[in-house]
């Protein structure tokens, strides 16, 4: 059995978990093994149903007082106990920040290797080793790796596969599994949550308009803000901008910032270093505005305007206003 550990946050499944189920469906078929799923800290019927829609034949749920809110240590220990109990041939999770964290906890507790951010996996065909291709540098570089492990533990590269429901959904068998969690594991439980903004965020916005070094100052982001507000989008930025203190780090698109997936990404005054490209490449469409026609961002964009962003952005805003009038 291939067990997919599903990431979720207070009642809704994470996109990375859907990606892992999609990837896992193919991997389970290659292994000739059934696809099962695990829900830690919930037995939510809707998520069980969703796992079935993605092809999971069975869903194991673990509910315990120590799992009252997210705690990486408690979730990791619960998943590790579940794995010892179920004895799956391999374990998979989505490669989100939290998914990788939980699997690291699991691997540490089971004293097994963890191969993070895989995009291709060849299961063992009798030789005792698995081989895989995984992402380094946030996906700018790929690593072919070998894995010698009695029980492969893997995560999938974030957004490396698109989530896709199974052709024929199944009604999964549900089994609640008891675990024995030491209350001290709650020492890493979330104590509080602070909401800073309601509405669309960088990772959910349909339109992201970013500025780079070429914007020139914190104040010069105002026209980008105006255009973003008009389109129901968000303003992002490059690492150079946060390093200059022009915008908070939470606005940064990139390997060390947010990986965005908007319908269109408008990158203005951004050269497109690999660190930035990693965060931008999952955008469905890209428009680059840059004075340099050879800039990496321009070469990789679907559309480009080769001009000064300080002239182009206000002109786009005016054109939208004119058409709306």
């Amino acid at each position: 059995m291939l067990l997919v550990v599903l990431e979720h946050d207070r009642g809704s499944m994470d996109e990375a978990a859907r990606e892992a189920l999609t990837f896992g469906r193919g991997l389970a078929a290659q292994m000739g093994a059934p696809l099962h799923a695990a829900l830690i800290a919930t037995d939510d019927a809707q998520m069980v149903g969703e796992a079935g829609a993605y092809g999971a034949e069975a869903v194991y749920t673990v509910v315990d007082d120590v799992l009252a809110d997210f705690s990486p240590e408690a979730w990791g220990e619960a998943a590790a106990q579940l794995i010892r109990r179920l004895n799956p041939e391999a374990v998979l999770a989505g490669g989100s920040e939290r998914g990788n964290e939980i699997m690291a906890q699991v691997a540490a507790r089971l004293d097994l290797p963890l191969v993070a951010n895989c995009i291709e996996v060849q299961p063992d065909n009798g030789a005792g080793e698995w081989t895989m291709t995984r992402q380094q540098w946030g996906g700018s570089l790929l690593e072919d790796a070998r894995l010698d492990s009695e029980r492969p533990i893997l995560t999938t590269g974030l957004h490396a596969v698109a989530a896709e429901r199974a052709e024929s959904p199944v009604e999964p068998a549900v089994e609640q599994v008891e675990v024995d969690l030491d209350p001290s594991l709650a020492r890493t439980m979330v104590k509080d949550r602070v909401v800073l903004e309601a509405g669309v965020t960088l990772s959910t916005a349909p339109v992201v308009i970013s500025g780079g070094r070429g914007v020139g100052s914190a104040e010069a982001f105002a026209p980008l803000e105006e255009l973003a507000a008009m389109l129901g989008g968000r303003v992002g930025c490059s690492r150079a901008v946060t390093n200059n203190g022009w915008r908070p780090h939470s606005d940064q698109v990139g390997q060390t910032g947010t990986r965005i997936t908007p319908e269109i990404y408008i990158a203005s005054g951004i050269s497109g270093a690999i660190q930035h490209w990693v965060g931008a490449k999952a955008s469905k469409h890209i428009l680059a505005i840059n004075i340099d026609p050879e800039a990496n961002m321009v070469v990789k964009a679907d559309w480009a305007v080769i001009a000064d962003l300080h002239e182009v952005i206000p002109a786009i805003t005016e054109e939208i206003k004119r058409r709306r009038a």
Partner: protein
Amino acid sequence: MRILCCVKRVAAPGAKINVTADGLAVDATHLGFATSPHEECGVEEAVQLTERHGGEVTVLTLGPPEAADQLRYAASVGAHHGVLVATDGSAWDPQRTAAALTEAIQDLEAADGPFDLLVFGNESADSGGFQVGVRVAYALGRPIVNGIKGIEVVSETDGGVVRARREIDGGFEVYELPMPAAVGVKEGLNLPRYPTMRGRLASKKLEVAEVASGAEPGGQSLVRLHRPREAVTETVVLGNGPEAAPAVVDVLEELGVV
């Protein structure tokens, strides 16, 4: 406070990244090296914490002898001690790295007492295994939370408590870890300072303690590195000035985002 920071020496890439002929490493000939960004912020945070609460920062790295450069850089921005677990420069897998770091920390603690806080990067910029900090913290029995972009000491009595913030969509989560504790930090935690002239001089005097490790390889091994096949994009140039605006808005309308 006694704080230990683990850092990794990584290549400093720009627009693209090349691989050596044997496929086993990044060709850094034209790139140079730097401290992995998350860890650079980790060092800054550790230094700030000791500036506020007193104490010392020890920086630990595992890598080739040249990784001492990253320890010296940390010293130039305020770290007090540097320890290098020397390797032959080959890529160590995450289990082996974690075992070697655990052993080094145990030795340092046996000699000088426990660290209140262990600071790791959430993941290294290059190999990105997302696990070394968690493995070390687990082996040492310390609580650890990843994704941390804010640290504050809220109590110094009875071991103390560290409050840590983790960014989530549209806000943040708050954790309170009893010390001794560990955190996996991310860039954005702070804006690292630049070395001062005095810092640079201090870093030259840093005595780097070099230790060896007998840690055995783990189950994951590198076969080769290669660049992903990139889709060739035919970029459509919509114009060369503000007069391109109508064409841009046409595109936005076509995508249904206006």
